[in-house]
């Protein structure tokens, strides 16, 4: 069984895993990071979405062994200990972008990645970006609203470039 060493939410993790262990299984079952969820078997729903080296990846469609040396960030890693919500999380609460909460960690991680690569997405761009995240509760209406609002907040928080 491969021994692997990786960084999860800033902490070094060393584990021995079976070849077939998925990254999501490592996170949920070995590390107790149960904020990352599994909602399908076919890499479509995005409930398992985490960041690998800063980019969106479906942790149900990546082997744990393949994460050797990687930096993994899960929903727990973007949340502060005292429960203060970050800009994206706060926008989801403000705009009621979640109901049952099951797809929510994946949605937050996905939108966070979107705003990294596109600070000013249009509504259409948000909707296209979410192609890999299924929500059965919200009809996406308020998730889109939350994403656009978070983008605006983050843009406002940026120092205005000197002329």
């Amino acid at each position, binding site marked *: 069984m491969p021994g692997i060493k990786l960084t999860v939410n800033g902490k070094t993790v060393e584990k021995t895993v079976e070849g077939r262990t998925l990254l999501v299984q490592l996170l949920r079952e070995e590390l107790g990071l149960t904020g990352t969820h599994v909602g399908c078997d076919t890499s*479509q729903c995005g409930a398992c979405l985490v960041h690998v080296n800063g980019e969106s990846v479906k942790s149900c469609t990546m*082997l744990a062994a393949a994460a050797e040396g990687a930096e993994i960030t899960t929903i727990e890693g973007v949340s502060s200990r005292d429960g203060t919500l970050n800009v994206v999380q706060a926008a989801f609460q403000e705009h009621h972008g979640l109901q049952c909460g099951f797809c929510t960690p994946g949605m937050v991680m996905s939108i966070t990645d979107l705003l990294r690569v596109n600070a000013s997405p249009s509504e259409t761009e948000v909707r296209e*970006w979410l*192609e890999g995240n299924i929500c059965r509760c919200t009809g996406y209406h308020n998730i889109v609203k939350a994403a656009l609002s978070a983008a605006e907040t983050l843009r406002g928080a940026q120092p205005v470039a000197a002329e």
Partner: protein
Amino acid sequence: MYNFDYLRPASLAEAVEAMKGEDAQAISGGQTLIPTLKARLASPSVLVDLSGLAELKGVSREGDKLAIGAATRHADVAGSEAVRSAIPALAALAGNIGDPAVRNRGTLGGSVANNDPAACYPSAALALGATIHTSAGRAIAADDFFLGMFETALEEGELVTRVDFPIPTAANYQKFEQPASRFALVGVFVARFPGGARVAITGACEGGVSRWDAAEAALSSDFSAGAVTGMAFPADALIGDIHGTPAYRANLIGVLTRRAVQACG
């Protein structure tokens, strides 16, 4: 999943060696293979991970062609300035495979080696007349590479290392999504070269990605939407399933081909 050994070779040479193992299977991004393994539809004894091999990554323009390493991710192809300027249709195709997370793992080599009948990349390779380079030192023309659904000219243990795409004067890819999987129900890649046009169809054909000879002939003498308007792809070799009858797919091939030609400008 059935269990398997996992190997992460440090070089292509090591990977080729590892592939000599019984029931060895290469994995690159794993975006198709891992769901297949989860469904227990395959039982390799060892997985050889190619995704860490730097020598299989990257895009370079070499004269009248683009060389793209097999382990280059869809996201990297989509974002590559070289691809966007040389073959914008190829960048657009890569940027519309799956979803952002899938594009951060899935690779060109994985897609062409798997030759899923509904995948996007094989249509680009075929329409652009690409050359597929392999670990056995072979350079295989796309026309000879894609043999049928999930079938390619790769020998046992042979890996795709690079795909060279000739740069067309114009190209466009039109994808019509299957409503559930969002793979191509029909995808049409049209490429125009000084010597003529090539048209490749994915998603629709029983035999996997295929060229449409009649449309190519028409477009080669008159590259215009009018030249293909009203042309019909023969429906007899087309896939029929709950998402579309052969007749529907034949219709889409006609419509998308015309739209691709229009989009070529």
